[in-house]
């Protein structure tokens, strides 16, 4: 069935292996981001390229949509602003006629709610203001302030707030946006990016002296690439080059970033950001070569479109320069690669899924239900609809369905809520039975133990059993009385089968924990769990500990024999075994509200184990406290050393293997 795999002839960054469907294919793949599995999955298109637009432009460098849905495109080469109607037909141009309003290599445009057109007239080093019909109004030159220094005033992008205050990005300025009052007065800088504090820089600050530091290049903040504003007056800045960190920032009037400088997926090569009326963010990104759609918190949802400088197809952008969204949620992109404007419109599926997501984000779960159902009808595989419908069911008090859907979506919060309700109902129904059950359980245990003891008195176990039984019982005893316990182990010669049996039961418990820990505390797809790997992560450190401990301590005059170290190390695992059992039970009956119990028990087990290993070292090798501490530390160091060597050897031998394998393939397959 390679049919669906026959397309990925190129490195489609994140979807190279995903199949492509049959006919009616768009020139690009649409994908959604599954945050639970941290991967992209294919989905049917949410946006498709609109009917062909054939506007002849010189060099479109910025685009914006006016409140009346007219599209304003800045053409740097033709030196004008071109106004298109919503079908992409040219209506009029602004700033082309000779006179005071003539533009020179403009680079940015903004249209206010009243329809005033502000143009970043870069060549004339000013902001030029026009009415919507193109009549020149006024200009703003460089404000008279020492804070802007002697640099040229080259505005490239701008937004204007309700009061008429302009926020202007100057050409490659790292100081943030320049704020100008409606009178043209300088009101300070706004929203500068944070300077990048890399590890190297911090290290340098630690190590270098003052003179050396002065010679270092200062870590300057990245210049803002583009700026946009939403209906509520929040200002969004786009910043490229930070691996997505702070790629989109949502600034309030005080310049505080609502996204807290968070890392945006597919934001490293961000060109521009736009905000739709439903609160979705749209970015066009040169790095992922995609148009990306984010929810109002900045989490990426979808990626569509494609960037290819060789493009010959609508929907594939040559070199994007700006993005805008109109009131019908169509996405507009200015493309200086092909010198045209791209328009993408929502598909029927896109309308449903984004409507559902918007209502969901607004907390209108009931209203979102029909949309989710429609999405679910056409796509079983999109996790969003499971989460959405799960939430709907939760609100409808349909806890059983909510539980099912939340589990599919790996939404532990939602699952926990549904689970809490179901547990409550179950308890209400079965309370009496439960209490009776517990009581009878206790009685059985109590009398059972008594009975057993009586039986043993009557039929005493053969004396050959005595020692082994003692050894097994010691596994529990050592937990409470580690010193005493380890002395007993040291003195006793424990049969190897007992040690092995104990070790196996610990491993059994480990496996049980991998597969039977409650969903809330282990929200993974069980079939994707690699049990062997998990076990290896458990066993390999333990084995290296034994080796390291034995080696180190025999050098350091420890008394312990190898057998004793192995025995001791097995017995030291006892807290893990005994505490895991209640953890397993609890994790299956607790909701997230009681999660602290489980976590506390887990922490307890870990600490207890560490203490056990410590005591074991002390007792087996007959060290004093300080010696034990020292030697344990050395053991840990030895463990790390063993691992490092192991990795190096593994790596080298893999390279060698790879070399021979490639050679074999080359000779055998290709020639």
């Amino acid at each position, binding site marked *: 069935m390679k*049919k669906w795999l026959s397309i990925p002839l190129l490195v489609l960054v994140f979807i190279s292996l995903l199949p492509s469907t049959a006919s009616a294919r768009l020139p690009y793949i649409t994908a959604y981001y599954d945050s639970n599995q941290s991967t992209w999955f294919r989905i049917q298109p949410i946006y498709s390229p609109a009917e062909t637009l054939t506007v002849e432009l010189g060099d479109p460098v910025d685009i914006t949509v006016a409140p009346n849905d007219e599209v304003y495109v800045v053409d740097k080469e033709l030196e004008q602003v071109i106004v298109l109607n919503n079908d992409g037909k040219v209506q009029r141009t602004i700033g082309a006629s000779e006179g005071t309003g003539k533009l020179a290599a403009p680079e940015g445009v903004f249209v206010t709610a009243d329809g005033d057109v502000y143009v970043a007239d870069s060549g004339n080093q000013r902001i030029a203001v026009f009415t919507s019909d193109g009549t020149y109004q006024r200009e703003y030159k460089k404000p008279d302030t020492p804070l802007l220094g002697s640099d040229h005033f080259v505005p490239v992008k701008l937004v204007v707030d309700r009061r008429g205050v302009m926020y202007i990005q100057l050409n490659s300025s790292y100081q943030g946006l320049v704020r100008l009052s409606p009178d043209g007065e300088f009101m300070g800088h706004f929203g500068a990016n944070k300077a990048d504090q890399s590890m190297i820089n911090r290290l340098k600050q630690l190590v270098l002296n003052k003179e050396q530091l002065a010679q270092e290049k200062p870590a300057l903040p990245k210049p803002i690439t583009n700026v946009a504003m939403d209906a509520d007056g929040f200002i969004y800045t786009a910043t490229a080059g930070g691996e997505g960190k702070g790629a989109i920032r949502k600034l309030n009037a005080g310049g505080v970033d609502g996204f807290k400088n968070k890392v945006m997926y597919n934001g490293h090569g961000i060109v521009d950001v736009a905000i739709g009326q439903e609160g979705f963010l749209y970015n066009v990104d040169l790095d992922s070569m995609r148009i990306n759609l984010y929810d109002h918190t900045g989490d990426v949802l979808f990626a569509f479109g494609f960037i290819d400088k060789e493009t010959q197809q609508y929907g594939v952008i040559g070199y994007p320069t700006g993005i805008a969204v109109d009131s019908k949620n169509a996405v507009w992109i200015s493309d200086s690669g092909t010198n045209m404007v791209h328009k993408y419109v929502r598909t029927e599926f896109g309308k449903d899924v984004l409507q559902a997501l918007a209502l969901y984000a607004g907390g209108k779960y009931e209203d979102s239900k029909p949309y989710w159902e429609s999405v679910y009808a056409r796509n079983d595989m999109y996790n969003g609809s499971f989460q959405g419908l799960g939430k709907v069911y939760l609100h409808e008090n349909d806890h059983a369905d909510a539980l099912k859907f939340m589990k599919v979506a790996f939404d532990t919060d939602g699952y926990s809520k549904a689970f809490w309700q179901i547990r409550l109902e179950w308890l209400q129904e079965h309370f009496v039975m439960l209490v009776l059950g517990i009581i009878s359980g206790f009685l059985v245990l109590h009398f059972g133990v008594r009975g057993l003891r009586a039986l043993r008195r009557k039929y005493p176990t053969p004396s050959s059993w005595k020692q082994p039984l003692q050894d097994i019982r010691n596994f529990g005893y050592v937990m409470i009385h580690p010193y005493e316990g380890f002395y007993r182990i040291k003195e006793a010669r424990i049969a190897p089968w007992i040690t092995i049996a104990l070790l196996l039961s610990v491993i059994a418990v480990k496996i049980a924990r991998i597969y039977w820990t409650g969903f809330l505390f282990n929200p993974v797809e069980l079939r994707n769990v690699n049990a062997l790997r998990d076990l290896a992560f458990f066993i390999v450190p333990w084995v290296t500990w034994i080796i390291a401990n034995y080696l180190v301590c025999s050098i350091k005059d420890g008394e312990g024999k190898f057998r004793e170290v192995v025995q001791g190390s097995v017995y030291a695992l006892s807290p893990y075994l005994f505490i895991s059992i209640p953890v397993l039970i609890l994790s299956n009956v607790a909701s997230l509200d009681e999660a602290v119990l489980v976590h506390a028990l887990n922490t307890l087990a870990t600490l207890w184990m560490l203490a056990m290993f410590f005591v074991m070292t002390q007792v087996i090798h007959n060290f004093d406290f300080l010696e034990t501490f020292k030697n344990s530390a050395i053991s840990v160091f030895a463990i790390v050393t063993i691992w490092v060597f192991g990795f190096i050897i593994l790596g080298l031998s893999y390279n060698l293997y790879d070399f021979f394998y490639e050679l074999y393939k080359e000779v055998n397959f290709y020639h």
Partner: protein
Amino acid sequence: MLVLFFLRPWELTTEASFAKTGMTMPKVSANELYEGEAWKPSVGADGYALVSENDSYSLYVRPDTTEIAVLDKTSGYRWTSNPGDAELKHENVKGQLLDQLKSPFVMTHVRTKGKDQTVRESLSNAVKDMTTSLIRQGDGLQISYFFPSKGLGFTMQYELTKTGLKVRVPSKGIKEEGEYALFTLDILPYFGAASSQDDGYLFVPDGPGGLIRYDTAHAKLSRGYIHQVYGNEMTNSGNWTRSGQRRETIAYPVFGLKKNDHAFVAIMTEGEDSANVTALSPGMKSSFFNVFSSQIYREEYLYRMSRLAAPSKAVQQEKLDRDREIEYRFLNDQNANYSGMAATYREYLQEKGSLGKKLDPVAHVPLYLKIMGGNYEQAFGQIRYVAATTFAQAEDIVRRLQERGVTSLQTIYYGWTNQGDYNMEKRFPIEEALGGEAGAQSFTSQMKERGVRVSFYEDFLWIDSKSSFSPKQDAIRGIDGTAFVDGDWYVAKPMYTAVSAANTISKLKEIGVEGIHYSAIGELLLNDYESSGIRTRDYTKQIYTELLDYTRKELGTASVFRGNAYVLGASDYIDGLPSASSYDFMVDETVPFYPIVLHGFVPYTFEEGNLRDDEEVEFLKAIEYGALPSFFVTHDDSRKLKNTGASFLYSSSFDKWEERMLKEYGNFDALSSLYSQKIILHERLADQRYATMYEDGTRVIVDYSAKSFKVEKGAGTNE
């Protein structure tokens, strides 16, 4: 012993197994050059000399430039290979481009010695030292060109036919005697070229068919429509683009041009698979609209000396030794449009016997029901088959559909092979999770009782590296001479494909399967760059058609996914036919050219009803273009398949789709009287409104803005 193990004398070679199946070996045929006295034409006042004529056409040649002209006697319209002086008055290109505009060919070549062996240079009839020799034979004219300074030469043959003009470049006429090698040859690049003042369009084979209108400007955006028939050579990484060529590959070797009341349709009849269809608009190379075929003889490719080194460019050594032939057929007045072009192409296919018989009328249209059995996933650290529809469940689905009124059904069962797509070569025993061989047997016999034909889907081209398969022996070799591998996947040599398909067929026959639904062979065509000599796409084509014929003979039916023109005569059904264009900057309008050719002869479906991007629009498109209904279903929720190779089934649970299927089937079935009819005219009535007319005069009018369609019954009767 060891030698025995390696040579395995007890195993038949692929060639021997192929011979055993009874399929015939591909043949290589080549046209002869004309021989005889040089022809001394007597030139008329306009510089042209009459070559030959028949009832409908006369052929003229200008001996000084070798330009040609064809007079259409019925309309009096004269087609010329190049624009005349009057038309060139306003031309603003100069130099080489102007020379090419006046030449009946453009030959591109490369050096074979010294530096810069990938630099391309062009020759036209304006080259000073060019010599030509003309020979007339029967109705035909042969012109041999030679360029002494380059040591290059080739021959063109023109022949008049009852319907138009044949142009041929025989491989025997190609001379490469110097340090230069032929790269590409544009044949009649400006034949019938139109200007933007003319009314009409260029027709290009993009998706179902694409028009390039004279009233639209394309130059700023586009570099022209230049694409290889049946897709480019995938094994050449130099052909890969960043966007991965997500576009419709050319499925039929046809292009056309409409100029006012006259039109031609050009059918590439030989060597079409190694040619580009090139359509240009004013501002690209001239101020004309022109469309032609550019014949590929060599390709530039990227090769790597080692895994670490950066790839370098090279030009392939051995040329693609194939005759090239194009047939121009001329149309006038009400036939001078894309419907007429399609009808002409259909007639051509019928003449050649490569379209098959006309379909018989049916009382009800068939519903093509694809059923996904399942596929494998990696889970719990191992390979696990995920069953989505067992044979018993599939039976149940068919039963339910029949009970609810779907009387005509064809089923295609997917994913039946052992462990699904894991280890492609291990197909048997049939996957146990679906019911195994016994389950399959009872399924097919049940279906036979119900009158439902069962085909099994399988891919015999792509082979994963888990298979016991020798890439060195049996994988297609790429343009760099090494076995082509994409990730972990090889493409089997055509003969290997045929043999493994034949083996599979013999087993499926016992089980009662009545057809194979082939993936890939109807859409993927490659040269095999064997070190002993290139096996061309023509060789591959012949084996694939042989295989389809064999399948029909053994099982009853053969069908394909997509459907390049070479499978038309041997396929009972084409699945996943493209219904939309590639969104190319050049193409202004999408038209149902290919559906017009096929309708009434080969049934076809578009994207399955449950997997459409836009349900309503694509449904209407299927109605407009005369497609049949198809659905791709599973018994279980398709979510099960999320981690398998079948994850493209976004939603396929039969329970979810049952009602929609019945409704849609009803809509299609209302058109059952059209099933066996030809489409005779397709036209745009208004924006968003289209009409498709059938033989008996029935018109189907689709309105995309109202999201509805209506049928106007025709007066005529079905023939």
